[in-house]
Structure formats: C-alpha cells, structure tokens
C-alpha cells in the first residue's frame, strides 16, 4: 500500500511537469497547427539560463527565474519571427522539419555554451520531506505540483476570458473569419510562441531542480507526445489529465513490472489512442483522418 501511494505521488508530480510542457505544446498547436518538436529544447534552454544566472553570475534565484523566463520568451518570439512565420501555409512535413532543425540548433547552442556534461542545479526549492499516508514525498516535488497547478489554472483563465486568449481560440477555429474581425494572426502567433517558451522555461527549471541540468532535460520533449495525444492535441484540460495519466502509468509500470517497460508504455498508449480515438480524451473531433 505504501508503495502504491509513493508511486501515485511521484507519478502525479511527474505528470504535472509533463502537463506544463504539454500545455506549451498545445498552445502553439491551437494557434498555428504546428507541432513543436523543439519544446524539449526550450525546456533545456530555460533550465540552463536559470542555472547560468544563479551559478555563473551569482544572481539571487528569484531574479534569475524571472530573467530566464524573459530570455526564453524572447527566444520564442525570435523563433516565431525567423523560422515559423515564413512557413505559414506550408505542408505539415515542412513545419515538423523546421522545428526539428530548430531543436538541433538549440541543442548545439546549449552544448556550445555550457558544454555537454550535466551539471548540478543550484536547488532553490525547499528541501525536506513530508509524509502523506505513509509515503514520503520531497517538498520540492510538492511545490512543483503546486506551481504547475497554479500555472495551468492561470493559462486556463487566460484562454477563457482575456482578449488575446479568446482571439487565439478564434484563430484556431476559423483563420479567415478571425482575420475579418481584425485579429492579427502574426501577433497571436507571437503570443503563442512566447507562452509556449515561458511554460517550457518554468517546466525546465522545475525539472532541473529534481534531476539537475543536462541533455536529459530535453528528453521530456518526446515524452510529451503521448500526453498530448491522449489528452487531445488542442485541449488544455486534456494536457493536464493526460499528463497525470501518463505520469502515473510510468510509475506504476516501473514500480510493479519493471524491465524498463515504463519507458515504452506511454508510446503504446499513444498508438492505442491514435487507433481508437485520435482526437484524444478532450480534443475537438474534427481531425485529419482518411
């Protein structure tokens, strides 16, 4: 029973990080139908930036977090302007390859600046453990869940009520009609990429807190695919629920079955979902199918 609670708790906390990364993914997809293969690299970039500000420049961690988030947002805007905007209207394969190329460039950049070896992250989250139902959970993990939950809540509010949020949903629905009411597609795309970069940066920092900064941080980018497919590519609640399910599934298979099966179970789920319900749990039903 203790193991079960332990697995559940760590599954949920991992799942929240997944959800956070997935949300950035969903935001970009909603606004522009682009699948961002570089999301993991944004995560890594955010983590390294924060690392640099704290450990290399010796800034206080609060300022570092703000600066890293701002830096990532700037990078998101730059990427949208230089890479994605010229490709508006190109086929899917071009979009996919562009973000893949981007991930390669970003990896090279990070490696070139900070070197390929993983570093210890100057942990700024509180240390210590709390006990929940006999299971022990690190305080940092608890905080991660809280912060991620809060962020997801804010994002949901942003899409529901703010002008830009509604505009983004409108664009996802009918591009031309949105344009006819003066919604600037360029501006919305820029906002989407900035948002995606910001969520990625925050996710990256939290992940780095748990596992350190290194190339591994970017691997979460791949793990996010099962999450978004399960939840629905265009749904924020879907990203949260999907993240939680995938996080739990990984922990349970890892804890009870083992053999590294936890690495692969999310992808099996992905294929299963694609075959049965390609729009996921919460996605819009209209999707490309033969």
């Amino acid at each position, binding site marked *: 029973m203790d193991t079960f609670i332990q697995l559940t708790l760590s599954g949920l906390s991992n799942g929240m990080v997944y959800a956070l990364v997935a949300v950035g993914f969903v935001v970009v997809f909603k606004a522009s139908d682009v699948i961002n293969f570089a999301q993991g690299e944004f995560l890594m970039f955010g983590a390294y930036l924060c690392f640099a500000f704290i450990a290399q420049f010796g800034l206080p961690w609060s300022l570092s977090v703000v600066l890293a988030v701002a830096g990532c947002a700037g990078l998101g805007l730059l990427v949208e302007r230089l890479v994605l905007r010229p490709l508006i209207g*190109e086929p899917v394969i071009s979009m996919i390859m562009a973000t*893949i*190329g981007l991930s390669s460039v970003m990896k090279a950049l990070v490696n070139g600046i900070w070197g390929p070896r993983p570093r210890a992250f100057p942990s700024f989250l509180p240390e210590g453990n709390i006990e929940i139902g006999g299971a022990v959970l690190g305080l940092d993990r608890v905080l991660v869940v809280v912060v991620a939950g809060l962020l997801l809540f804010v994002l949901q509010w942003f899409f529901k009520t703010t002008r830009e949020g509604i505009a983004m949903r409108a664009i996802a629905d009918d591009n031309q009609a949105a344009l006819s009411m003066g919604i600037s597609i360029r501006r919305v795309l820029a906002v989407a990429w900035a948002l995606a970069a910001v969520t990625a940066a925050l996710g990256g920092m939290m992940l780095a807190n748990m596992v350190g900064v290194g190339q591994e941080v970017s691997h979460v980018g791949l793990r996010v695919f099962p999450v978004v497919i399960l939840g629905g590519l265009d749904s924020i609640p879907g990203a949260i629920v999907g993240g939680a399910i995938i996080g739990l599934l990984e922990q349970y298979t890892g804890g009870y079955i083992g053999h*590294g099966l936890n690495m*692969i179970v999310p992808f099996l789920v992905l294929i299963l979902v*694609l075959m049965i319900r390609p729009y996921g749990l919460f996605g819009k039903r209209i999707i*490309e199918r*033969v």
Partner: protein
Amino acid sequence: MRSGVFFEKYSEEMALRPYPLQRMRLGLFALAVVIFPFIASPYWLSLANQVAIATVGALGLNLLVGYTGQISLGQGAFLAIGAYGSGLLTLRMDLPFWLSIPIAGLITAAAGLIIGLPSLRLKGLYLAIATLAAQQIVEWVITHWTWLTGGTEALVIPSPKLFGFRLDRDFNFYWFGVATAALAALFVANLMRSRVGRSFVAIRDQDIAAGALGVNVFRTKLVAFATSSFLVGITGALIAHYRTIITWERFTLDTSITYLAMIIVGGLGTINGSFFGATLIVLLPALINSVGQSLQTTVPAAARILPFVQQGAFGLIIILFLVLEPEGLAKLWRNIKDQFKVWPFSY
C-alpha cells in the same frame, strides 16, 4: 532542318533519359564514379561509401514521404530491422550476405506493413506521431530483446565476401555500394512511371480524389510502406555489413531525422534529390571537421566546439532550405540546367 528532339518510336519516348544531353551527363557522371576510387584517399572513399548507402535509404524514404506523402519518423526503426535482420542471418544461420541482404529487405517490408497500418486511419501530423511511437517501441525492443540482438551490446558480424573478394576494404565495398545505389535509383525511377507509382503521387496530392478515381487508397499506402521499407531495410543491411558492427545507437530517432533532412534538403519526390541530399548531409560534418582541423593550430578552442558546430549546422541547413528553397537541391540543379539551356539569352 530539325529544330528540336523528336521521338519517332514509342520506345524512344519511354526512355528514362530521352535527350542526348541527358545521356551525356549521365555518362560523364558514371565515368566520374568509376574513376573516383582510384584517385581518392581512403578517407574520401569511406565517405563515398556512406553516401552510396545513404542514397539507397534516402530513395526509400523519399518513396514514402516525398512521393506518397506519408510522413514517417520511423526510418531508424526500419534501418535497425534491416541491419539486425541481415546481420543475424549471416551470424546465426551462416547465410552469404548477398542472400541475407534481400531477405532482410523483405523482413523490413513486412515490418513496414505493420508499422504502416496506422496510415490507413491517420495522416499528416498524426501519422508522424504514430511512426515516432513505432520508432521508440522498436528501439526499446532491440535494446531489451537481449538473447537475439545482444541488447545494448554491439553485435559483431563477419565481413562480407563476394566472388571470393572480401569486401572489408572501402575500395572493394565501393563497387558493391555504388551498384546497389544505382539499382535502387533505377528501381524507383521505373516504379514512379508505372501505374503503382502514379497512384502513390495521386494519394499524396489528394487522397480522397484518388480514391474516387479508382485508386485503392488502403492498398496503395501499404504498398508504399512495404516498398519503401524494403529499400530502407536493404540500406540497414548495407550499413551492417559495411561496419561489421551493429549497435542500436545507429538507429535512433536522430537517424530518422537525418534521413528526413536528406530528402528535405535534396528535394521531396525526386531521385537525384535523394542523392544530392544524401551527399550533402553525409559530407557536411566531414567538411566542417576538416575546416575545424585546419583551424585547430590557430584557434585551439575550435576542436572543443566542433561537434556543436556540426549539430548546429545540420539544424540550420534544414531551416534554411525550408525557408529559402523548399524544393531543395534538386530545384537548384534544375535552375542551373535551365540557365545553360537558354544561355546566352538568360534573363
């Protein structure tokens, strides 16, 4: 007086290279290919072998992605199946490699049919993600099916022999590799002007309309997956026998991406583009390497950042081609030819 090239027989019109100029260019190219190994250094010869092998793989992938429009991120998985298939056949069953390679191709084609199954229901992005998952699953199976594949350990296979020649030297392997690449190109060229090839293109351009016109969409997609994987499986087998060491690291998602980069940079849905793209993507790191080596004496830091420059250049070249010349090197080559065609009256 004749004012152009006219065809008087159907056979003339059906020829793959109907124009004298085209035949001349091909002849010159063939000549260069034959002379090359006698003048090139071993280093360049090994690069040429890698280009030849990659060309076969790029042709296979182009068949699926470029001609049929089915995006696949599972190239690495297909290569792995071909490599391990052929390697294990020679290692465990003592088959000669010229037999194990086509068998590995067939095994991969069968795997392609299975991995292609989702394409019956999915397209575009969703198919890309499904093949991504397939890639992850195959990687996992290879690293965990230890008694068969050796897991994460490298699998060492005997070097191939053909007509008594050992193909363990680059010079010897070169002829075999180039011949395979040429055969593959001929195969794709002929396939694409057949009924099957045209139905591939029809599905890429408008699958619903193709279905309405009597193309069996499901079957055609599966045929595309199978033929493509056959070629890719052969590529995997070639890699295995060229290296004589098989490790799973050669067949990861990054490999899939490398091959996709080849056909994007070379030109989607073109045969010469597959070759151009394979050449550029294989040579790019080598070129950067040689530049770095020469710089090393003056700038010692060059060696340290070299791998990152290679990685960055790889990504950058993909983005640049997508933004500036989405039709790739094949289009650039066509532009050059057109320049000459109208010379000196270019405008």
